[in-house]
């Protein structure tokens, strides 16, 4: 007999195994070895979170109560998958091109990035998903209870509740760990998806194992089993209520598209659109296998188990009653898998919505003006918000479980949840197929549909008389009999579920369509509408920003907070390169801002990203809309005008780039001109002191010894300065003419840095140095003297020019894409954006002339790095002055 302790042990071991799977997958993804993570098989298996504990246990119960009707739950999604080309492909394409993070994001983004709509969808999703999570907790608890009943040594009482609580807490921990590890711009969770795929295999195998045992072990083969089904009084009959069947099929299909967790795996976690093609036949096959043995198990349970046994638990109680403990435990693990995978994904999906659409907008409001740029790390806020949301969502599920008493049949709760999220369907499908769909229509339809659902389905689900008094159920509120929850407008005799779904969806759709027709969508909505409906024609992004006053550096600071420094720098560099601009700061063109906004929306959602970019660009969406409204009579005109606009911006940009090039040329020619005069100045200054003091020594005969020695010292120092200057000039001219000989040798980077730190005197304690000796343990083949010369220059500059009270210099190393990067970042006030382009020019000095520098150091560094096959650049937006030295990898070999 399986003791409860054994069962708990198995659960814990299984949980630990999933941890390992998720952890391994994350590691593999991090190392870029994620080929097999991105296979269509994993995608298909992850879709199987559609088959929750409700399917695993509940389908048999459903079959035992209502015969073949359970099939409707599978037919709906199967139809959607088979017809993938029609709707799913479009949703996935939109999701990918617009970087949609959730179903709320999709609807809000479509209807003009409306945050109000996002909040509404989020709230409905939370309310609609809560019963479903409760359902999973209930099924796990029930399955524990089944084992407890069979275990004489265990006492089961209050412990059922404790079980649910423990399960909820365990799931919260797992989800927080793997669902919020990193704020990925694509919102993908490799670890979680992998764990779910594994669970999908486990639950399928478990159900098949029970089925095979029932048919061949107990039933004596296929023929006999079929005969027994025929003989069964309830299952043998083929009674189909056309209304209820089509209603249920519709509901399941709608839920498949609208459930937040399904949206998460279908769209958000989708790595490749082509996976849909595989899933379109593989997923129906999976579902078919899941449903294959439902009838045999149900019939065996009805005939072999005592009357009154809970049909929802046949999958467990059948093997147990036959003493097949091992099989029962396997079956239990299958049910456990179904429940946990659903809860994990649902919690991730909901927490993304809550944090992006409720927490972040509030947080942004609370920090007006400075939100995006100055205040602390936004990533931490987002991640904390998600973690709290996950815990809250699971707690809500637990609360519903406690309140509803865990009484109602599994299938009933599941259907109520389905019909709640099905309210998204009109706005979603209308949004992607109909350009006339308007925000006000979507909002009203959703709100009213949701209210009807609450009244007719959700509140009565707690049980008669719990929330809605029995009297109201009978006669309607305030005596308004046409508002009776089960008989709207006095139409009686309908199945309560069909009744609720019919009315809520019907009224929702009518309001959505009606109000959309009679309202005029705002320009932003029309733009987004065109983008969504014609996603296959133009995969360009929606226009939102036109260049102007945006400060690229501020944008960089914000982007680094949200995307992480590395991602942000890569993005900015890529965009800059695309525009043909050197360095890290692209022109804030409309195009660039859109790319940026879309990247950011991966982290915080479309509406928030729009608001954040708006804060920095100094414009809000309103003025963009105003601008657009001028050219907004029909969508066609607008598309045409936006093309024209693109052309004219391009012209403006070309002109701007020409002007910049011209400015730079003028600047260079002025500099060239100034070059001689500069050299003259740099040479004459020390010579002045030398001449003057040597004349004093020559002419004045009354000098004391100390005075003589001092003046001789001045002459000596100035002569050295002169020599140094001439050396620098010669060095530069040699480097510029390419006549330099490199002494290539293998050296350890740490040694080069150690040498540079000592030579520049930075080890004397006036400046705090942060280094990472382990990182620096890299062997490279280079000219170590030349490289050290560059490092010395950068460190010495930091010593001279860092104006912080407690100067600090951070030297960090990174290898990336064939290059090795050494960053030198101090905590001073850095270099102004306008001057960043000039600092590598000869004789350019920033600010005051200090410590006798001639302004040649960085020019020499640039030449040296070019000779060494690398580069040196200024890294904006790091808080202080920041220089990046890039070395080529061909010569860099990692320490073994």
């Amino acid at each position, binding site marked *: 007999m399986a003791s409860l302790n054994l069962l708990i042990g198995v659960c814990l071991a299984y949980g630990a195994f999933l941890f390992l799977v998720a952890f391994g997958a994350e590691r593999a993804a991090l190392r870029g070895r994620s080929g097999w993570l991105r296979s269509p098989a994993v995608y298909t298996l992850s879709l199987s979170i559609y088959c929750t504990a409700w399917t695993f246990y509940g389908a048999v119960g459903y079959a035992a109560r209502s015969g073949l009707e359970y099939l409707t739950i599978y037919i709906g999604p199967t139809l959607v998958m088979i017809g993938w080309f029609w709707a799913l492909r479009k949703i996935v394409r939109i999701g990918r091109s617009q970087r949609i993070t959730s179903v709320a994001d999709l609807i809000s983004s479509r209807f003009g990035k409306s945050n109000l709509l996002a909040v509404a969808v989020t709230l409905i999703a939370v309310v609609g998903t809560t019963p479903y999570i409760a359902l999973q907790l209930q099924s796990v608890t029930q399955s524990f209870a089944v084992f407890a009943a069979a275990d004489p040594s265990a006492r089961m009482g209050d412990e059922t509740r404790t079980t649910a609580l423990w399960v909820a807490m365990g799931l919260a921990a797992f989800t927080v760990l793997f669902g919020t590890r990193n704020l990925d711009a694509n919102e993908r969770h490799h670890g979680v998806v992998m764990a779910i795929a594994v669970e999908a295999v486990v639950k399928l195998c478990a159900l098949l194992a029970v089925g095979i045992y029932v048919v061949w072990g107990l039933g004596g083969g296929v023929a006999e089993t079929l005969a027994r089904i025929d003989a069964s009084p309830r299952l043998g009959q083929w009674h189909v209520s056309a209304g209820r069947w089509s209603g249920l099929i519709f509901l399941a299909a709608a839920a498949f598209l609208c459930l937040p967790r399904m949206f998460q795996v279908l769209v958000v976690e989708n790595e490749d659109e082509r996976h849909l093609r595989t899933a379109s036949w593989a997923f129906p096959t999976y579902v078919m296998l899941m449903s294959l043995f439902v009838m045999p198990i149900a019939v065996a349970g009805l005939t072999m188990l005592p009357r009154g046994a809970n049909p929802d638990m046949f999958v467990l109680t059948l093997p147990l009653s036959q003493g097949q403990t091992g099989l029962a435990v396997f079956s239990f693990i299958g049910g456990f898998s179904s429940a946990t995978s659903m809860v994990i994904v649902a919690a991730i999906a909901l927490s993304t919505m809550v944090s992006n659409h409720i927490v972040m907008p509030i947080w942004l409001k609370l920090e007006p003006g400075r939100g995006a740029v100055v205040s602390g790390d936004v990533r931490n806020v987002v991640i904390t918000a998600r973690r709290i949301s996950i815990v809250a969502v699971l707690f809500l599920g637990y609360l519903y479980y406690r309140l509803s008493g865990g009484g109602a049949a599994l299938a009933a709760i599941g259907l109520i949840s389905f019909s709640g999220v099905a309210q998204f369907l009109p706005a979603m499908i209308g949004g992607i197929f109909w350009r006339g769909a308007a925000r006000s229509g979507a909002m009203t339809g959703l709100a009213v549909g949701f209210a009807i659902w609450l009244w007719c389905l959700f509140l009565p689900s707690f049980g008669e008389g719990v929330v809605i008094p029995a009297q109201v159920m009978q006669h309607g509120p305030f005596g308004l009999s046409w508002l009776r929850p089960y008989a709207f407008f006095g139409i009686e005799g309908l199945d309560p579920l069909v009744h609720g779904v019919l009315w809520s969806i019907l009224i929702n759709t009518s309001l959505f369509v009606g109000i959309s027709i009679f309202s005029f969508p705002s320009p932003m909505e029309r733009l987004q509408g065109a983008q969504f409906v014609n996603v296959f024609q133009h995969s360009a992004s929606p226009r939102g920003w036109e260049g102007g006053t945006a400060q690229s550096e501020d944008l960089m600071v914000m982007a680094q907070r949200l995307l992480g420094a590395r991602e942000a720098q890569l993005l900015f560099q890529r965009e800059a390169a695309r525009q043909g601009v050197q360095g890290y700061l692209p022109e804030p063109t409309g195009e660039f801002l859109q790319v940026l906004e879309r990247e950011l929306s991966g982290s915080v959602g479309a509406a928030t990203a729009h608001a954040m970019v708006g804060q920095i660009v100094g414009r809000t969406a309103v003025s963009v809309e105003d601008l657009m409204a001028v050219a907004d009579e029909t969508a066609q005109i607008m598309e045409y005008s936006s093309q024209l606009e693109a052309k004219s911006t391009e012209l403006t940009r070309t002109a701007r780039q020409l002007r910049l090039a011209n400015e730079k040329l003028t600047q260079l020619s002025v500099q060239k001109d100034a070059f001689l*005069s500069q050299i*003259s*100045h740099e040479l*004459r*200054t020390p*010579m*002045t*002191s*030398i*001449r*003057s*003091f040597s*004349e*004093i020594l020559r*002419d*004045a005969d009354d000098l004391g010894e100390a005075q003589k020695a001092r003046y001789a010292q*001045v002459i000596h*120092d*100035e002569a050295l300065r002169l020599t140094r200057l001439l050396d620098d000039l010669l060095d530069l001219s040699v480097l510029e003419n390419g006549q330099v000989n490199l002494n290539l040798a293998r050296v350890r980077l740490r040694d080069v840095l150690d040498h540079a730190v000592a030579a520049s005197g930075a080890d004397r304690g006036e400046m705090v140095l942060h280094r990472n000796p382990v990182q620096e343990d890299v062997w490279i083949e280079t000219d170590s003297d030349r490289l050290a010369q560059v490092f010395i220059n950068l460190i010495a500059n930091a010593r001279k020019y860092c104006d912080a009270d407690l100067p600090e210099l951070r030297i960090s190393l990174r290898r990336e894409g064939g290059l090795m990067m050494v960053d030198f970042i101090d905590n001073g006030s850095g270099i102004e954006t306008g001057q960043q382009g000039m600092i590598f020019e000869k004789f350019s000095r920033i600010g*005051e*002339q200090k410590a006798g520098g001639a302004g040649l150091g960085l020019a020499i560094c640039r030449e040296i790095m070019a000779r060494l096959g690398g580069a040196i650049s200024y890294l904006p937006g790091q808080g202080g002055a920041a220089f990046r030295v890039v070395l080529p990898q061909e010569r860099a070999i990692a320490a073994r």
Partner: protein
Amino acid sequence: MGKSVLVIEDEPNIIEAISFILSRDGWRVASHSNGVDAVEAVEHRKPDLVILDVMLPGRSGYDILRELRARADTDQLPVLMLTARGQTRDRVLAEEIGASRFMSKPFSNAEVLEAVNALIAP
């Protein structure tokens, strides 16, 4: 009571050299080493003569001279300009603005002495 001179120059060694030469000649020497508030320094010290470097941190010597010439109390103040550039157009510019005398670096000590004494001769 010797005459007073204000040396506006940012190289400490050059300040020291000029101070030495002039104080041996009986001048009271003060110095100021940045351009930003050089005019205020002149207002404050009211020297009999100013030695002004062209390349100063914060503000160019030409700008300072322009402002001195624009003020009623300093428009006649003798100013000896020093420059390390030594090109003709620097000299022309200095004379246009109203420098009393222009000298390029490196200078000979005797030349400086001769120049300052000539400038305050009645």
